[in-house]
């Protein structure tokens, strides 16, 4: 599970935004390092394609620089960043038929990590397919909630949906995911007993 964002507080974020607005190139390293991992993971999980995710990742950051003047601070910078990425993902998915991961590439990709054993790779692939099999609108809310620990309000801000719609969609998506997990016969980790 990805860390929500290693932010020490909104104050730091606003300083980064201010420096971006001032076109200070020195802030680029800091801002990219800070948000790269969660942003890239988010895009990969939404588009389910490594190459497309890389293109969208680059495009998102270029758009951040181009449009930072229009960021009014109504929401967190990370939320705005995810908004841009999600819009690009939606455009991408609309414009071309979705491609799927080539399993062998995926396996090689995961196998580079010596701590990951074969069973875990298979399990991870099954879960990836499961998440990818959700309808795009449901996938968006599931990814934002379960991988990025976003609140209902933050999900509403990122997706541009009313808060009530987010709640109902999240409920329906979770139910669908549960039923898919049950029918896929995945090894469900046991809940911790307190």
């Amino acid at each position, binding site marked *: *599970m990805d860390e929500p964002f290693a932010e020490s507080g909104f104050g730091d974020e606003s300083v980064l935004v201010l420096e971006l607005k001032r076109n200070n190139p020195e802030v680029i390293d800091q801002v990219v390092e800070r948000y790269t991992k969660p942003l890239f993971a988010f895009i990969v999980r939404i588009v389910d394609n490594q190459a497309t995710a890389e293109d969208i990742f*680059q495009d998102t950051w*270029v758009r951040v*620089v181009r449009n930072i003047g229009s960021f009014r601070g109504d929401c967190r910078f990370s939320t705005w960043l995810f908004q841009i990425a999600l819009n690009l993902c939606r455009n991408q998915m609309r414009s071309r038929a979705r491609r799927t991961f080539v399993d062998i590439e995926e396996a090689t990709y995961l196998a580079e990590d010596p701590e990951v054993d074969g069973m875990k790779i298979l399990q991870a692939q099954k879960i990836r397919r499961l998440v990818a099999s959700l309808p795009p609108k449901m996938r968006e809310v599931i990814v934002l909630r379960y991988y990025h620990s976003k609140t209902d309000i933050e999900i509403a801000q990122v997706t541009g949906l009313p808060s009530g719609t987010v709640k109902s969609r999240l409920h329906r998506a979770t139910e669908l995911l549960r039923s898919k997990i049950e029918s896929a016969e995945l090894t*469900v980790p046991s809940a911790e007993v307190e």
Partner: protein
Amino acid sequence: MNRISDEQLHKLLGQFTVSGPGPELVAETKRLMRREMAVQAAPVRKGQTGMILAMSAFVLLICFNLFYVATVGTLLKRLLPGSYEVYLNHSMLGISAAAAAMVCGMAVMVFFKAFQPQRALSH
């Protein structure tokens, strides 16, 4: 089968991890961002912009006058006695002044719109 709890769902989905992007991609992204930032920070060629604005204002002024002459002016010239012609000619100046005032208003609006983001920085 027991219902999968929210905690179990969290744990299960957590097994699908995604590695961060490669260092080459991150480096290339930073380079693109710097280039975009340089474009954003580049001073606007004021001479060219000023010329375009002046031409647009002039064209707008001419359009106003032609519209006035072709519609209201023509109508009044036919309806009013010949002694009023001098007033009609003067009214051309009036309509020019009104058009100039509108152009100035638009310029002021554009100025404040363009400088609003910079102003917001000071808050």
